[in-house]
């Protein structure tokens, strides 16, 4: 199902977005949000969550404290100042890192499991997928694969892979 189609039409929230997000990195490595609560300045270490990690990586980003309470919902990264954007991007890149498959070398069938040998943007990788875990085509045409350890792999556009990879992939795609 396409999540976007079912979403209610977004209202104009321009007033909220221009809000300044005051972020800095603490010496323990945590990203910290400075804000005012009841007139007092507060500094809270935050975690970053993406509402639509596959379709809109740079939109609707939730900044939450360790207990999971949302402190701020960032509408789009583009409307933040450079420093905050940079810090959130760092956090996103680390938390939402998923290897991008650039070449499929082989898919070996073992009864109902599949052993994939692939080349990714992070280096070569072998992984095993279960019989009921097939590559899932996302609404935006990307292909998502989940292996038996819950590691994820993504293919941006299967058509841009080399001919051999395409051929190997073909029988597993919808």
């Amino acid at each position, binding site marked *: 199902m396409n999540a976007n189609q079912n979403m209610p039409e977004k209202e104009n929230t321009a007033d909220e977005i221009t809000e300044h997000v005051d972020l800095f990195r603490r010496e323990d490595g945590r990203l910290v949000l400075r804000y005012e609560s009841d007139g007092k300045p507060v500094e809270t270490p935050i975690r970053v969550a993406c509402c639509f990690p596959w379709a809109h990586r740079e939109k609707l980003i939730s900044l939450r404290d360790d207990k999971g309470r949302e402190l701020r919902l960032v509408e789009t990264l583009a409307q933040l100042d450079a420093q905050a954007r940079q810090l959130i991007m760092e956090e996103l890149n*680390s938390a939402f*890192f998923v290897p991008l498959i650039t070449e499929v070398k082989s898919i070996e069938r073992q009864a109902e*499991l599949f052993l994939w040998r692939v080349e990714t943007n*992070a280096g070569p990788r072998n992984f095993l997928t279960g019989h009921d875990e097939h590559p899932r085509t996302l609404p935006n045409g990307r292909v998502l694969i989940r292996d*038996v*350890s819950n590691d994820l*792999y993504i293919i941006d556009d299967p058509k841009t892979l080399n001919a051999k990879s395409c051929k190997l992939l073909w029988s597993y795609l919808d």
Partner: protein
Amino acid sequence: MIRDLFQYYLLQPDGLPKSLAEELLRRYPGNKILAYALCDLDDRQRFTEQWMILTEKYLLMVMSGQNKGAWKVKAFPLLEIEKFEVFDGLSSSSLHLIGTTGKLLASLRYSRRQSRAVSNVQFVAEQKRKQLKEGVAPNELAEDLDPDEEYRDAMLKAIEDAKAMLSMPKLGVMMRLLSYLLPHKGLVIFAFSMAALMACIQLIPPYLTRVLVDDIIRPLEHGKTADPYYWLWLVIGGLALVYTLGELLSFIRLRIMSSVGEKICMRLRQDIYSHMQKLSLSFFSSRPTGTLIARVSSDTDRLWDFLSFGIIDIGVSLLQMIGVMAALFLQDRSLAIFVVLPLPVMIVMFYMHSSKIQVHFLRIWRKWSAMTAVLSDVIPGMRVVKAFAQEEKEVDRFNQKNRAVEEEAQILHKHWTRFWPMVVMLMHTCTLIVWVIGAPRVILNITSKGAEGIPLGVFLAFIGYMWMFWAPVQHLGMMSRVINRVTTSASRVFDVLDTIPSIVNKPDATTPPSFDGKVLFENVTFTYDGVRNVLKGISFDVKPGEMIGLVGTSGSGKTTLVNLLCRFYDVKDGRICIDGCDIRDMKITELRRQIGVVLQEPYLFHGSIAENIAYGSQGVSLRNIIAAAKAANAHEFICGFRDGYETIVGERGQTLSGGERQRISIARAILHNPRILVLDEATSSVDTETEKKIQEALQHLVAGRTTFAIAHRLSTLSAANRLFVLEKGKLVEQGTHAELLAMADGVYAKLHRTQVELQANVAV
């Protein structure tokens, strides 16, 4: 072997490199390696080899250097680490080491597959640090950890779990499947001989043609045959006999094999289902119900075809091919070569075709399961569909999947319909070649008056054999696909049969006498994963007939404790005794027969209410069923149903409300009359009014039995003689409600306060 597994599935080392381990021992003498894990991502998001190694006093981060065998080591004394922070991302995690000064010492990144091993290291490190600080050995930590073993187990766990579904090589599966024929070997051999005999008999008709032409009709042209009609009828009679015999043999064979096949499938179904009943709960929690049902039903059914016909067909086809080939060569060697010649070509064609078709089958199968997924998704949610008036949309959704199946099937049909004419064309080409070469030689034979060439009858017989030769070739071609399908199904069936139940009877297990109900836990320790202890040294003593309330936050180990009592799992250390006898020395079924369980989500089977109440009790009278229902406060509402106790409750007992289902399950437990009773949050899913009725029912049930009751709402435990308060796997407090409340700082007192406040808020 293990190294191969790591290389094959994970592309990473199967353990700490030896040279590194030796070097670390040199650099940090006396520091035994306790645990290690691989952190496979560097800070630029590339796969790398970085080890996180825990020794007695240090946590080491080791990167492989530029040169092979050179290691860059960073050491962090355990006492300088304040805490570990884990950040779980989508597909990777990072572990931050925070120093005592509050500074980030190091950040380690790893993909999901490493997380089990990493979290083991983190856990052991935390325990070690505690030990270094406080000087006492923590009882949370399992003893005698072998770092290599822990690392391997942690890494291979996911693969092993997935492989539990996977089976041995195909030949192994085949041989095993054939072994199911063994008990019927007499019949199978008989059927096979029938089939072989039939194959031989089928060789006769072309030969008779030859006799008819060469020995009767042609000599007749020269007036050489005496009494031609006699011979003619004899040959035709022979043909009739051969055909009749053939039909008879094939009838016998089919009859025998179809019944043998059905018997084997029944046995497989029986084996697999009775084996499933022996398996522990963890087996079922890790597999979707749908696939398990498919294994018992459709997978075994797929084997029938193959066992009944496939096996013999393959044998007979091979025999037929050899027999016909021999006959061809006997008729005319030079022509026979032209028939056999395309065989290798055909084998290659069949092979390529079957692997191509296989892919399409796979795709169809996937589309098919996507279509059925819509069904299994939507049918139970029909209420929601109707409530949101989404019927048309759901029809569209289904049609979309349905159309996808059709489209894929059309492609498949296009492939094979294109392929078979090609095969037949090849056969026809060969036939033509045989005619081109053979026919002139027949004419030569006639013009030379039999001195040269081939006699007409021989040629006709040859043509006949040639067609007979193609049949088994085609047949074997089709079989390759069947074998593929069958091995998949068979391996899915054997996979279940190969799973070993984790709880088994001891060989000298005894049948305990009726329990008094004295329960003793002696220093009981338990772990699910081998590293973290979920229950830690729990000891207590419960008198017969006492009611114990188990209190604690979720994850404190309450359910684990009662699971151990029912022996769904075995304790790791310590022991559990009932009436002074270790439960591991009792027969499992006998033990469980005397323990009754009432769960939060009562499960009713399809059948009448009476049958559901009598489930687990044998030979009970109707009067007793009613007595149990009365005690459970269920009699009144059951009598209100038009069908009374014969009311059929649906698969999930849907016709009843939650409270009604719960009271039926309590009646079931009352009738079962266990000596020891476990109530696992029996009242948490109903309204207050119903809860009161259930409470009354429970009071009848509890009377005179040793009872363990788990509840979130402390008020429901008012009848308990004693309360046990669990926190993080330890028994921290025990006593009566009043005694526990008296300890103002106690865990129970705090829990109680929060609940009272909560209720006060609700009341406002």
